[in-house]
């Protein structure tokens, strides 16, 4: 009986979590228009700009290096097999399609989740511990609009931008590999890249990146808003934000990949 009770309790908790996350998502969406210059609240877009610098610009070096490494690894692994069939040229297709559809959005999301998702939960968790969120509420200010919405807008803009940069770096690594292995020059490489990918490959990757940005921001902020107690609760929330957002990003990736496959988008 206890096992059933425990199971029921866990299921209820998970439903409550998803319910809370959904409510927070819609509140965040409704608050987005107030982030824009002129039509939004005074100074709020500056907060969004600061978040863009933190989420996007500061993450670029790490994403660049990771994409270069991942692109080179993918090219090496692909070449090991394709060389046997005399199809080394198809390494270009593997890298270009692999990055635009899959690796670009996923690598970017993992980096942003680790850097920014954890920072969101730590920042908001600390604000909970020091009563700053309570202070906002007593001042009749909505914490969702004040704290979450600038991050949400910033992530919706910067994660797709970072994804494009990740794709560029990954494909550039493929160029490096092809030059070292076959002396293929850059112009020819780029022509092959454009032959292998179509616009919908890039577009499907960007759709994924928007979904990943939403997951990372909302899970990170949700974990922060849930903090009760002291500094150790902030630490737990930070860990939980990274674990949950990475898990949900991969689930969402599977969902979108299946949808794109079934709809013929990735065919």
């Amino acid at each position, binding site marked *: 009986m206890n096992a059933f009770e425990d199971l029921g309790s866990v299921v209820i908790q998970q439903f409550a979590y998803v319910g809370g996350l959904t409510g927070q998502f819609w509140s965040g969406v409704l608050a987005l228009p107030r982030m824009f210059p002129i039509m939004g*609240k005074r*100074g709020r877009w500056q907060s969004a700009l600061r978040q863009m610098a933190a989420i996007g610009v500061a993450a670029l070096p790490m994403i660049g290096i990771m994409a270069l490494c991942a692109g080179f690894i993918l090219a090496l692994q692909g070449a090991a097999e394709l060389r046997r069939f005399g199809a080394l040229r198809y390494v270009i297709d593997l890298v270009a399609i692999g990055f635009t559809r899959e690796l670009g959005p996923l690598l970017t999301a993992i980096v942003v989740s680790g850097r920014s998702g954890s920072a969101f939960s730590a920042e908001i968790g600390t604000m909970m511990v020091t009563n*700053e969120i*309570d*202070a906002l*509420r007593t*001042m*009749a*200010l909505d914490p969702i609009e004040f704290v979450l919405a600038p991050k949400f807008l910033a992530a919706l803009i910067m994660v797709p931008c970072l994804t494009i940069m990740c794709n560029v770096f990954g494909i550039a690594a493929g160029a490096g590999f092809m030059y070292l292995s076959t002396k293929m020059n850059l112009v020819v490489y780029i022509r092959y890249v454009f032959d292998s990918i179509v616009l919908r490959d890039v577009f499907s990757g960007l759709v994924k990146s928007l979904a990943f940005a939403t997951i990372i921001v909302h899970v990170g902020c949700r974990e922060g808003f849930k903090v009760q107690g002291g500094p150790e609760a902030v630490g737990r929330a930070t860990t939980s934000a990274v674990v949950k957002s990475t898990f949900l990003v991969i689930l969402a990736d599977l969902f979108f990949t299946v949808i794109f496959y079934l709809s013929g988008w990735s065919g």
Partner: protein
Amino acid sequence: MTEPIISIRDLSVAYDGHQVLDRVNLDIQRNEIMVLLGGSGSGKSTTLRHIIGLERPDSGTILVRGVDINRCSATELRKIRRSVGVAFQDAALFNSLSTDENVGLPMRELTELAEPVIEIMIYMKLAVVGLGGAGKLLPYELSGGMKKRAAVARAIALDPEILVFDEPSAGLDPIVSAELDELILLLKRVFQMTILVVTHEIASAFRIADRIAMLDNGSLIAVENKDSFKASTDPRIRQFLDPVPKSLPESAAVLDHLRELAGLTGAVR
């Protein structure tokens, strides 16, 4: 007597089956300083959080300016919140903002005032609390007393009718604590504010209070003016005013255990 500005009726709150507040009734009149006294775990912070609308009670009503804050519309609640300033125990200043940005935040967010007007008002609010020259400092650069005064400046930014203090003297030395008490009296005198102070500092309570309410184990046991409170013969109030440490329930057993441990380590022969 006029209609109270805050009226609490049968407020009951329980957390995980533990009764924290039990049918608390309290009226706070306009332009008075009400001090809510109580020991640790007596329920005074819980009462405060319900009065400022941060939590919803299990039962009972809280009327602020005649409006039930748990049953009113979101618009009404926002209006009520704008008329209540709160100075939290640990100041709750936004660490990423300078002191003047903290004070200006409610004005920038909730009013349409022009920026030069806001800047003048920020300076005035900081000057009232004695921080006229500290506007550009970040919260971590302020001392404990300065943080509390900056929190007061932010709380009075929109000229609220009601000002709430959560443990204003906590963590302050007696001199700074007395200065803060003087500031509370000044705010009442100059701005005609109704002030609610939640504290366990008896000296501070007697300095500033018009009336004192006392909570004990979640029940309100007294609401009196400070002279009759001082003269109270209620043993629970006397215990609070003239504290005598309670003996540990199992002190003999604890001492035996300590002796045994000391013997094991060779500290006692």
